[in-house]
């Protein structure tokens, strides 16, 4: 008896708005064991991603050998992944809650510029670098709040609101920075964030902390549960007593704060704040989230998947670079690999479901 049979029948694409329960996610009735449960659960869903990542590493190992497989290179990949990773974790919440945010890159830029103005930096060197961090977080949260209020209480489409924010925040960043790159001069700030702990760069540690906090928040708290409900069926959530609007707003604020953190990390990494920071982060973050298995239509989200999604994209670029592939060929290969990775993930997920 084929397991695929049921999957073949669904006519609709798994696109936005679909509310048919996913067949691959459904698990068996009476004869389910703990092990298959795990498999068909999050691990099963992520197995495809793990395989894709391993394959990628294998390719890296074969084609670039030691240059790929050394601690330094691994740390480079992780460090590169960490900034967009933090944004993607935040994005996972917004998408799981049924929203979308195109303004993340612009918010990162605005936060980085605001936190590196002469005024802020002077104050920060007088008092403490924490001032710069708070500025970035506050700017991020503020932008997120505006997004959230317009979307939830103003009943506007998230796509449009955040597109407007994308334009406005980047424009504002340019105005503040006067289109110049603002160099970070606060030594202690750089020392702290550019340092390592036990050989692991602090940026990577921050990413890890954000990812773990995100995982706990989504999977182990009432907040996460509400996020899933709001994304899965907002009307049902409302009738079950969840304050849907407030919750949606909070999701955008959360993502705004993540953007603020990312801005701080980027400032440390590049020792500068500029209005060009975070360019195209919106696409990268959404891509990582979606490739990780979070449904773009909301109601199902996975932080582990998102982290894998980010790692896959970053490793891909790293392997390409180590192999000296030219940009155009890289782009073509990247397109093909994304499709293959997702197909792989689907097949594995289908296979790991008990029948």
């Amino acid at each position, binding site marked *: 008896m084929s397991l695929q049979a049921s999957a073949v029948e669904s006519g609709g694409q798994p696109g936005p708005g679909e509310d048919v329960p996913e067949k691959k996610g459904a698990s068996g009735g009476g004869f389910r064991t703990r092990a298959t449960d795990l498999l068909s659960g999050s691990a099963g869903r992520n197995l495809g991603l793990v395989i894709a990542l391993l394959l990628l590493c294998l390719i890296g190992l074969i084609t670039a050998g030691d*240059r790929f497989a050394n601690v330094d290179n691994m740390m480079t990949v992780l460090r*590169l992944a960490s900034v967009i990773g933090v944004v993607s974790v935040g994005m996972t919440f917004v998408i799981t809650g049924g929203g979308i945010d195109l303004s993340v890159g612009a918010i990162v830029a605005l936060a980085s510029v605001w936190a590196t103005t002469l005024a802020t930096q002077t104050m920060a060197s007088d008092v403490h670098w924490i001032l710069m961090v708070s500025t970035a977080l506050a700017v991020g949260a503020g932008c997120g709040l505006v997004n959230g209020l317009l979307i939830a209480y103003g009943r506007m489409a998230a796509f449009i609101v955040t597109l407007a924010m994308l334009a406005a925040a980047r424009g504002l960043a340019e105005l503040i920075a006067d*289109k110049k*790159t603002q160099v970070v001069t606060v030594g202690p700030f750089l020392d702290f964030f550019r340092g390592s702990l036990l050989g692991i760069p602090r940026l990577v540690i921050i990413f890890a902390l954000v990812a773990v906090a995100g995982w706990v928040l989504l999977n182990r708290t009432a907040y996460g549960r509400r996020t899933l409900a709001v994304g899965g069926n907002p009307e049902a959530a409302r009738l079950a007593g969840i304050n849907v609007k407030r919750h949606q707003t909070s999701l955008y604020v959360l993502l705004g704060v993540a953007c603020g953190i990312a801005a701080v990390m980027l400032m440390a990494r590049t*020792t500068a704040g500029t209005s060009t920071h975070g360019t195209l982060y919106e696409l990268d973050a959404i891509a990582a989230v979606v490739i990780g298995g979070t449904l773009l239509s909301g109601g199902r989200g996975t932080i582990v998947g998102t982290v894998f999604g980010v790692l896959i994209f970053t490793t891909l670029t790293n392997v390409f670079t180590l192999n*000296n592939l030219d*940009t155009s060929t890289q782009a073509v290969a990247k397109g093909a690999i994304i499709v293959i990775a997702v197909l792989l993930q689907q097949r594995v997920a289908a296979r790991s479901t008990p029948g």
Partner: protein
Amino acid sequence: TSNTPAEESNGGGDDGGTTAVSANDDPGETVTIGFSGPEADHGWLAAINSAAREEADKYEDIEFDIAEGTNDPSAQIAHIESFISKGVDAIVLLPTDGAALTEAATEAMQAGIPVVNVDREFSNEFAARVTILGDNYGMGVSAGTYACQLVEENDLGDAVIAEIAGIDSLPLTQDRSQGFEDALAECGQDVDRRVAAEFTVESGESAASNLLQAANEIDIIWNHDDDQGVGVKAAFENADRDEFFFIGGAGSANAMRWIEAGEMEATVLYPPTQAADGIRLARLLAQDKGLSDLVQVEVPRRIVLNAPVVTADNVEQYMPLGFES
């Protein structure tokens, strides 16, 4: 270490100027040179990349490690970091953002790897062994000065001068505009209309189309970039307007041909050979050689390329420098 007899065919030939005087092109010990630049998403940058690549190919003692072009400073920093960990002998770096890459370059220098900074300058002079700059400010000045000259020659009085900039958020665009403005001020002129495009043909066309509507009569238009110039020129044709002097920037082969054909007044050169020069210098640095062409024995710290104006009078001379975009 080299025992290949093929050196002549590789090194010499097409670029006679330097090889004649110096022994620097003789093969030395093999060195690895890392190169990183922005994404070649536009003609001038593509020319930079291919010139660098070709230059490296000429020397068989160069092992060329070219990193994927990227517009994300964070990713470019990663490139530098991986160059450092690979232990390359020298790095040629055209930063997406000079300030943002200063720290990474400094680290490379501290690791004993000479860094050649190309085109966009670092914020700290210890971050590079050599800095080769196309002069963006100078480019604006050249364009402005030439515009002043046109005003005078044609007796334009208070001329209507328009500027079509490139990506506005880039510091280099700001430098060019500043230079243009300063030079115009010298002869009592100013920029009446300014629009910004995005270094692409399409954005050039739409920016120019809107610009032409903004003023019925324009005397001089300076367009920062000849690559977007293809679109700018199409917009002129679409609107059927040609009452103005059209000055370009960068100096693509297209622009040179237009000048020859009389369809363009002039273009301000911004040579895409900087990276190629950077490769040469990096090789010399890595092999501990000097610049035997100069009196000075050492490779200099700072080279600023000139931004000459190409007009119908001298276009023939500059034609070989024009890059196909």
